[in-house]
């Protein structure tokens, strides 16, 4: 039985938690510019010691804005594995 999560602020969407993190930030490349925080509507990122890091993927809608925006190429964006991640009937 798969676990399904919902969020009140994002109606009409369900999440099946991914078995492992699918987005990460390479700290050695990150310039701490904060662009990934600015474009992400899911609040996936936070800054710590002037570097971006993944705070939580539970609202991620896999849009890849973080990948597109990161000039330093520090964001490693992948798909959540094996059918997990978000899903919606209303796209």
């Amino acid at each position: 039985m798969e676990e399904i999560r919902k969020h009140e602020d994002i109606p009409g969407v369900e999440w099946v938690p991914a078995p492992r993190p699918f987005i990460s930030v390479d700290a050695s490349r990150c310039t701490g510019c904060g662009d990934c925080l600015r474009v992400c509507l899911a609040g996936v990122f936070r800054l710590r010691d002037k570097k971006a890091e993944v705070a939580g993927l539970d609202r991620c809608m896999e849009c890849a804005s973080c990948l597109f925006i990161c000039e330093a190429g520090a964001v490693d964006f992948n798909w959540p594995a094996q059918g997990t991640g978000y899903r919606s009937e209303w796209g």
Partner: protein
Amino acid sequence: MRSTDYDVIVVGAGFGGPVAAKRCAEAGLSTLMLERASTPGQKVISSCTIPFYGFLFGPRWIRDGEPPIERPISGIRNFFVRDGKVYKTDNSFRVPGPLAPRGAIGYTVYCRPFCTWLAERAVEAGAELRTSVTAVDVIREGNAVRGVVTDRGEELRCGIVIDAEGVQNLLARKAGIRGTYRPEAIELCLLYDFKMAKQDIDRVCGYQIEYYWAMPEEEMIAPLGQGSAVYIFPYRESIHMTIGRFLKAEEGVPQLAKLLDGYYEKFFQVDRWREMYAPRAELRARIWDTCPIYAGLYEDMRSMPTFGDGMLLIGDAAGLEAAAIADGVPSAWFSAEIAAETAIEAMRAGDTSASFLSRYDRGLRGHPLIPALISDTHRRDLARARLSGSEAEMRRRVNQGWGIRLLGHLALPVLRAVYREMRRDPRVLKGWLDMFNRYYRLYA
């Protein structure tokens, strides 16, 4: 580790993938479709009004079939907003009264049922569909792509990979064929879906999509030219509403969550929304996704390859967005059919080299519609209206893009496509008329 052989592996069962897979399977090629979602279309987000030319000039089986459409669209109403009030309307682009809504300029659809329907047709034709499986890498031999690696660690070998992954392009990047879309060519769209009674929709917007425009100081939409209007799309018993914004523009990288929420807040105060929609609409979903926009207008992006040794890219994965009206589905369908034909020829010839597959790119460039759709500039030109600071100039530009003067730049490519189809088979006309009637019956 298991090793399996297919002639063709199609990555992605969105709008384009199943079209390619069905054609390949019909030609007798062993065809596998991989879809990362557990159900096709559950990870596809669009404010989807598929334009008529996708249905007319796209796959014949979609035209002659019974796809799950939501509502026929017979025109565009442009509302101009100042101080929270609609002060002017331009609804010059519409199908003449007696012909509407049977005569449609497009059809709204939900992605999940529509993509599922497409994938089912591909499976009926003999393609194999595996859901909840993600292609995470390609198998390479030198420069050649020889298959894909899945998130389950399987290596699936094939003659040709057809990449229908969409705008994120992860696989094409792994294969070294394309780079990532630049952020100036990506719009993040925040979409709201509202339930609304059918008779209310019939009365409020009927069969017309609604665009709301305002000057920048209104702070209701992104600066003109950057994804621009607030859009409302009527569905059967719901409406889709979307506001988008470039990830990056001259002003730098905005705080998008705050900005988009602010636009919505402003829009929900507009008189027409408050009076006509708000009392009748019930929020059901709030979703977002990125879409390519103007990618065809950047030389560096336009010159990125659409194929490699053993691999063909279709739809958004190939940069085939539609700057004209921001709908990539027709180009995904057109390119899927060209890619399938190319794959069939290549497998028959036993040659999947880049030089053989280059005929795919020639097919794209020679298509009556694709080049026109990706190079249209009028949407971007709205930026000039912003700089001019003139509302009259904005309305003139909107009329060019979404009013009657839209015909000026759409008519020629469409007529070219009509001519091509009629020359192939004059009976196509009956097929088109039947389609408009059948689709209307499906809706009604």
